[in-house]
């Protein structure tokens, strides 16, 4: 088992190395540089930069170095924990992303828990009651869930919260708690703001997950060992939950590992609509403004999260499936 985990970690490091190169290239891909944006901004405000000033800026950000030098500067700093400075905010990247990452991770985890809590029983019910009216209704709802863009659900829920519940939506805190120190009331206020994104993200993944659960379970229910379990005289509940569901979980766990990037994507759009200070919107503007170190660090962190998710899924898979453990 330990051997297996070490091997997986090795793979992960290789993947991360490739990701850092590709990610950096992607961030650098759009034409123009931050200095050009800065010049444009100043010109719009009526000012201008002299050639000396431009050269000074370019030197400061190392924009005239060849790309591999710039990459090396960034990645060697990143590994040491020095993520560089944001051009736009003129602040250490480290100070900018900490809290945002925390919000992103907590929203992701809560919505995953919610989605799994609903999707697994729903998929099991749907598979064991195939071609009955409830199955048809669940199927139609699942497709609707897959068809509705997350920002639309968010908009609808926000309108609902604002009109019916009289709740102030958007952001993470109500005005009075914005700068207040942490307290129970502030935490409750946070939850009141977070429920919409959590529900919205869970809504989309529930539909997909329960659909997959249904298909897997239908496959497993056709397996011989399910008949064996029935032939022992077990109740149908034991046959399904102990013998079938456990084996139908494998693809779901694999999907769980790969679902983090998808959740972060959905959350990006959602956070822009809802004005939540998570990673998504900041990365998005950093990317558009060529805020190199900020964007590259974000991309790297998100990828690390994704790869880590895969690693955890692999370990979980080995835990439920003895065949993988002894591989």
């Amino acid at each position: 088992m330990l051997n297996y985990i070490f091997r997986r970690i090795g793979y992960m490091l290789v993947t991360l190395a490739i990701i850092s190169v590709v990610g950096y290239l992607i961030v650098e891909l759009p034409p123009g540089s931050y200095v050009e944006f800065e010049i444009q901004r100043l010109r719009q405000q009526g000012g201008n930069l002299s050639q000396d000033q431009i050269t000074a800026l370019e030197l400061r950000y190392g924009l005239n170095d060849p790309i591999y030098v710039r990459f090396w500067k960034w990645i060697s700093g990143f590994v040491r924990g020095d993520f560089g400075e944001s051009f736009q905010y003129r602040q250490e990247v480290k100070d900018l992303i900490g809290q945002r990452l925390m919000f992103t991770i907590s929203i992701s985890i809560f919505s995953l828990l919610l989605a799994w809590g609903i999707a697994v029983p729903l998929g099991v019910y749907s598979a064991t009651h195939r071609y009955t009216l409830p199955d048809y209704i669940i199927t139609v709802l699942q497709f609707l869930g897959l068809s509705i863009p997350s920002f639309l659900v968010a908009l609808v829920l926000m309108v609902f919260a604002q009109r019916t519940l009289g709740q102030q939506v958007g952001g993470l805190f109500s005005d009075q708690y914005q700068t207040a120190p942490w307290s129970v009331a502030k935490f409750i206020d946070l939850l009141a703001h977070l429920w919409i994104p959590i529900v919205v993200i869970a809504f989309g993944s529930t539909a997909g997950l329960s659909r997959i659960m249904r298909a897997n379970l239908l496959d497993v229910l056709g397996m011989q060992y399910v008949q064996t379990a029935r032939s022992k005289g077990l109740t149908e509940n034991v046959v399904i939950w102990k013998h079938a569901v456990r084996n139908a979980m494998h693809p779901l766990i694999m999907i769980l590992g790969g679902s983090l990037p998808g959740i972060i994507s959905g959350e990006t759009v959602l956070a822009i609509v809802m004005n939540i200070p998570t990673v998504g919107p900041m990365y998005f503007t950093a990317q558009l403004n060529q805020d190199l170190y900020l964007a590259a660090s974000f991309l790297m962190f998100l990828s690390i999260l994704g790869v880590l998710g895969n690693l955890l899924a692999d370990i979980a898979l080995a835990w439920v499936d003895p065949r993988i453990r002894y591989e």
Partner: protein
Amino acid sequence: MNQTISSTSDKAASILEGEDIILKVRDLHTYFYTDIGVARALNGVNFDIPRGKVMGMVGESGCGKSVTALSIMRMVTKPGRIVQGDIALFRKKKGGENDKSQIIEEINLTKLEGMGPVMRSIRGAEMSMIFQEPMTSLNPSYTIGDQIMEAILLHQGVDKVEAEKRAINILDGVGMANPALVVKRYPHELSGGMRQRAMISLALSCTPSILFADEPTTALDVTTEAQILDLMRDLQGRINMTIIFITHNLGVVAQMCDYVTVMYLGRVVEQATVDDTFYNPKHPYTSSLLRSIPHVGSRQKERLMPIRGVVPDPYSAIKGCPFHPRCSQVMRGKCDAQVPGLTVVGKSHTVRCFLYSDTVEEASNVR
């Protein structure tokens, strides 16, 4: 619940002379309602199973052998359904210490709920089943011990320690080497032969009176097959178990069975002792089956005779005798018009064919 099936049970009640009948199947219809039509897997199956004997069930693929076993076990799942028929189980009440006072209780299994408590208490304890594929018939996520103990814990009301002891005992009994170690192993760590032994232990864990063996050796190599067959025969003798041995291997039938039931397209066409089946087959289908396999001592120049045509798919509704389109002795206007009824042609020997009598099967109204 314990309703008798008097209406049909008198007919051919004691075909198998001098045998104590443990299972009586009458007019069994099992249909599968699929997207592309209704597959009539069983189309009026009738037969008796003698207690403590080995009954072979033969026929080409798709003739309904396995579905018959699943129907009796009440394990036919959607979209399949038993639409008509009776299955009577004559169960010996295990009456305490003085085993002499054996009361035989008749239970009509088709009247029970398939997943209901009574059927579940019969399944696994009274009847159990071994499947064709030892590779897939054990759950990959649990150890061998867990899977055997599950049945023991369910039916025998013992604690885990005792259950494990019994599981090891049974594994030992089926000739598994190192049983104390094997209980901790997962199925994928065992070879095919070992898995089938484990599966047999699982099926025998509660000493059932009826065992359905659905082609238990098809997936195994010849040496392992011989070992498993020996083992089954041996166990059958030891605990006086009834075995219904489903196979399309006539060699295995000759080696294992006391009686043979020949099925074709969801019907029983002939039932006889193993000797009669091989040396005095009556139904043209049985004869063709026998002619299609080589046997030792046959003359060199004699050719094997494959049966003409293929088994029609079960979605077809064939009028008359199901075998008539392939039969070499078909009588036009008779075989293709009516279903032949049961004819007794010898001691414990019945056949359904118009060559031997004009008895017509009463039409059964099936939805």
